[in-house]
């Protein structure tokens, strides 16, 4: 983790020197923002074993609360961020409590409906949200009179939050709560048999991931200074799941790796393909789910095993000869 932090700290120094990758810093800010969402999603999907198709909406809720409150009511952005997180937590609680008390994947359906509804509301309530045209002139953030107005400053700001979140969540997973969550993923019956309050932990994971997504949404709104409903629709929810799947849904590091890769893919590399973008995403999910169900973080182990299998076969063949 320290090595990762150092690499992150040094990255801008290199990126600024080389003109070709200078704007990568900008992309990395978005990657950091999406990492925050996928870290939360990882707790929910990888550890509590629940699918959420509504995380783009929590992300959007944070963004729109920040945006609307600062633009229309002139509230200090720093008050909007915790407020957005609180609202998202309450919404997550309202959706999560009825659907997570039941067995099975009712959360997937409830969040699917939630996501579509939220997108429609963002589009239709033009007088508040600006409708499909979006909301512009959202103010940036500043700390102690030091405005975060350049990508480099925002980069350090966002990634230090990511590191803090990563640190806290790693501790959480190593703790009692984390063990309880993992036991739920493996077998709900077994978990409840040994006294784990399954519903409570699942709801906790969902609320926490919703709040993290809202935080990321606020950061997104204050960085881009502009938001529109298309950035928070069902497609984005699924893109967040792709990020997690690609990196590896059972690992927080996987969540970050996936977020960075997919962000670069969608902001940088897929421009060359334009219309084929949707198809490429489909192909990525299928490839990952079939060949690497544990994601990229599992790749080294997987290669090792394949190699071991091969040499095993070879020695067997030799022995038979």
């Amino acid at each position: 983790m320290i090595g990762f932090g150092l690499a992150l700290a040094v990255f801008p120094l290199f990126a600024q020197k080389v003109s070709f990758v200078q704007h990568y810093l900008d992309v990395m800010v978005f990657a950091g923002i999406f990492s925050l969402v996928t870290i939360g999603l990882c707790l929910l999907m990888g550890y509590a074993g629940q699918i959420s198709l509504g995380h783009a909406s929590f992300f959007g809720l944070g963004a729109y609360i920040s945006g609307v409150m600062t633009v229309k009511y002139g509230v200090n952005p720093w008050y909007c961020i915790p407020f957005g997180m609180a609202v998202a937590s309450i919404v997550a609680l309202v959706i999560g409590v009825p659907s997570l008390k039941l067995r099975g994947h009712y959360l997937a359906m409830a969040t699917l409906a939630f996501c579509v509804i939220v997108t429609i509301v963002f589009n239709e309530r033009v007088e508040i949200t600006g409708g499909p045209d979006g909301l512009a002139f959202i103010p940036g953030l500043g700390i102690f009179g030091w405005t975060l107005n350049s990508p480099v400053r925002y980069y350090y700001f966002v990634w230090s939050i990511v590191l803090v979140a990563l640190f806290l969540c790693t501790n959480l997973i190593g703790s009692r709560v984390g063990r309880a969550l993992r036991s739920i993923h493996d077998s709900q019956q077994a978990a409840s048999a040994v006294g784990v309050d399954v519903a409570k932990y699942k709801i906790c994971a969902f609320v926490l991931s919703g709040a993290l997504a809202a935080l990321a949404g606020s950061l997104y709104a204050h960085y881009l200074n502009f938001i529109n409903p298309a950035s928070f629709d069902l497609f984005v929810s699924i893109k967040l799941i792709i990020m997690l799947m690609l990196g590896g849904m059972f690992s927080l590091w996987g969540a970050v790796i996936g977020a960075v890769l997919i962000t670069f893919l969608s902001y940088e590399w897929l421009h060359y393909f334009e219309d084929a973008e949707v198809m490429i995403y489909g192909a990525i999910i299928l490839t990952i789910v079939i060949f690497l169900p544990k994601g990229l973080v599992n790749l080294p182990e997987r290669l090792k095993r394949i190699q071991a299998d091969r040499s095993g076969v070879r020695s067997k063949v030799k022995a038979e000869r």
Partner: protein
Amino acid sequence: MAGRLLSFRSMEEISLGSQLLQFTVTGITIGSVYAMVAIGFNIIYNVTEAINFAQGEFVMLGGLVMVFFRVALGLPVFLALPLTVVVVTLVGIILDRLAIKPLSEPSVLTMVIATIGASFFIRGAAMMIWGKNPYDLPPFTGRTPISFLGAAVQPQGIWVLAFRVVVVVALTLFFDRTIMGKALRACAVNPEASRLVGINVRQMVLISFALSAGIGALGGIVITPISLMEYDRGPMLAVKGFSACILGGMGSFPGGILGGLLIGLIESLGAGLVSSGYKDVFALLVLLLVLFVRPSGLLGSSEVAKIKKF
């Protein structure tokens, strides 16, 4: 003056009455398509316990492939229709073979994600082939609306209803009278026990994908002359069909049909009487409400829901 007012009011009432009738007719038509999507969901759910997120894509493909056969190749309906169903059924089979069967660790979670991936792939491919514009399809029997108690009924709407009835009757016969249908139902009740009595569950999964692809295609074929079809219609159709499923009760065929009709009615009445901008919200609010109040749905049993994984 009073007389004029009275007659004016009664005229308004008549127009409101026929308006309601009009919304109901529209609702039943669109609801029939949702019911077909819901039946497709249920067939796959019953065998695999997973939700096929590519179900809406089958409907979209049904419409667009039919457009290809009818408009581009100029084939008559009675040729184009079976050809389209065969093509989309093949897509369903390919989906099972390429995306579901190779899963090394098949669980409900990975299957759901695989179908999401497949739906993206199909949507992207459809966009490359047909582009982003909506396509029109000539209706089976003209466009002259039939007047029915003051409401205008499109002839194609009657076709939609007829096809739904045919699908329901054919499926009922299939599930009750044939060995294969019974085997499918056995898988729905208990896959492990079915395997023990010699049913090839893998093959049943394949058949369930083929069947629901075919039914989805039929839905797309009959609705395209009314509502046009474009490459990204799938997800919304899937969401509505899904709501229909939940409303009726997951896994229940009569439930899916009832749910589809109700969702169609709620949507068209809501759009007509309350607000057309929020037309898609009504169906989804119903979905949320059902999930929170009665998660087993109107006709589903909570006993069955307990043994299911999804």
